[in-house]
Each structure stands twice: as structure tokens, then as C-alpha cells.
């Protein structure tokens, strides 16, 4: 395992790359999060020529979609704890939306209000995007509990992080790329918080079982 990564790392090192590392054991040894999907999945959302403002509208659509996902998930939750967590997650996405909108206004001081902009973003997302109901059906079965929700949420955040970073590789404009890196940082922090929460809940569950 990891033979290919070692060979690739050696090639880069000998071809002038200054600092090269190889993941020991390759992906089989990786115990962190992964995201499924092809290298170009979701990249149809960007042409590569977007400026920062346009990019922020796309990000707004993604974050708002996640907010709607968690808000609507509440109705399928097993108990109050899971419902409360849905609400908390929806609030985090709401806060992301507000932050993205603030950045947008910085770029377009005379831009539309948040509601109108969300309308634009929504239309953009619905082209080829999965509807919230379908996503719920696929990702959260009726009567899901807190732990299942957290695991799903971490998977979703890992995918959002992955999408933002893959989008950044495609963008030509430096400022737009930087905006994506900032958003990716937010997702990273969010993921870490979710991981800590999952750890806490798993320990509680273990203590109850023992």
C-alpha cells in the first residue's frame, strides 16, 4: 500500500518540487474524513470566469440549501435532542449565509437585499441540483437520532469543503479564489466542532451502555 504515492512523491521531488510528502500507507491508512464524488462533480456551477461577487452568490445558494436541509430534517427526527441539533445546524448555516451576504455587500454596496439575492441563488442551485426533499430521503431516514445526524452532517460538511476547494482550482480570478479559501476555512472549523460533538455524544452513549 502507498507504493504509488511514494513513486509519485519521488518523481515530484526529482522534478524540482521543493517540499514533498507521501502519506504513509496511502489512503488505506487514512483515518480522517473522505468525500465521495468525481474530481469535476458540482463544478458545473462555476465556469471559472466568475468574479468574487458572483462566486459569493453561488456560495450563498449552497449554504442556504444546507440551512433548508437541516431545518426540514427536524420533522423526521426521533426525539427532542435530534430536533434541537437540527435547529443548531440550521442556525450555523444561517450564520454562514449572513457572513457570505456581508462579503457580497462589500463587493456590491448597491446590491439587492438578502431575500432577493437568495432568490437568485436558489434559481441557480435548482438547475441540475438535488431537491432538499430528495437529499433528506437519501441521507436521513425517518426517526434518525442525534448520532446519525452528526455523522451525516460531517459527511455533508466534508463534501462542502471538498467542493469549495475543487472550485478554487478552476477559478481564474485571485480574489474569487481567496473568497473560496476563506469559506473553506469556515467549513474546516465547522467540521472540527461537529467532530468534537460526535466524540462527546459517543462517550455519553458508551457510559450509558457500560
Amino acid at each position: 500500500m502507498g507504493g504509488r504515492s511514494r513513486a509519485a512523491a519521488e518523481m515530484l521531488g526529482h522534478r524540482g518540487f521543493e517540499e514533498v510528502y507521501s502519506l504513509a500507507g496511502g489512503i488505506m491508512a487514512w483515518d480522517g474524513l473522505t468525500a465521495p464524488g468525481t474530481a469535476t462533480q458540482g463544478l458545473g456551477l462555476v465556469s471559472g470566469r466568475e468574479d468574487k461577487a458572483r462566486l459569493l452568490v453561488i456560495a450563498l445558494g449552497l449554504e442556504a440549501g444546507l440551512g433548508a436541509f437541516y431545518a426540514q430534517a427536524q420533522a423526521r427526527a426521533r426525539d427532542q435532542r435530534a430536533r434541537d441539533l437540527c435547529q443548531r445546524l440550521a442556525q450555523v448555516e444561517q450564520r454562514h449565509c449572513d457572513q457570505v451576504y456581508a462579503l457580497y455587500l462589500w463587493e456590491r454596496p448597491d446590491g439587492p437585499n438578502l431575500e432577493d439575492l437568495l432568490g437568485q441563488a436558489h434559481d441557480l442551485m435548482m438547475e441540475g441540483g438535488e431537491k432538499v426533499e430528495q437529499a433528506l430521503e437519501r441521507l436521513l431516514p425517518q426517526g434518525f437520532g442525534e448520532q446519525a445526524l452528526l455523522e451525516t452532517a460531517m459527511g455533508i460538511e466534508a463534501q462542502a469543503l471538498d467542493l469549495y476547494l475543487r472550485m478554487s482550482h478552476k477559478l481564474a480570478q485571485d480574489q474569487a479564489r481567496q473568497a473560496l479559501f476563506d469559506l473553506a476555512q469556515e467549513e474546516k472549523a465547522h467540521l472540527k466542532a461537529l467532530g468534537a460533538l460526535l466524540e462527546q455524544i459517543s462517550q455519553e452513549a458508551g457510559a450509558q451502555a457500560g
Partner: protein
Amino acid sequence: MMLKALFSASRDLSPQEVRQFMEARRPDQYTLLDVRQPAEYKRGHIPGARLIPLPDLSERLGELDPHKPTIVY
């Protein structure tokens, strides 16, 4: 010249070290490179990884920044 070909040009990092490396940096400060085949990438990859399968790597090196630390898996 021969010596350079013998010495290792890269270093192994454990998964733990890779996680720490990525946590300590912004994602624009390094390149995460997946050299497996597209079908393997599709099943699951580390978030933000770029895909260049090993057989294509030699001719696609120009897509990567040689000045950025690069982690390969």
C-alpha cells in the same frame, strides 16, 4: 549526479502528521494530490484533493505549483 538519484526526495508523513499539517495551514498554502485512478477517487478522497493519476503525472506536472508543499497519496 548519481547520488541524487539514490537519496529519497520525499518524506513519509503518518495520517496524524498529515492532519496536523493541514490543520495548521490554509488550504491555499499546500497541494494535496491524489494519484490513484478516477474510480478510486470517486469512491472517496480527502476533501480538496486534486486528482492526477500516476500514469498521467509526468506530463501534467505543469498544473501544480512546485513551490508549495505537496502531500501525495
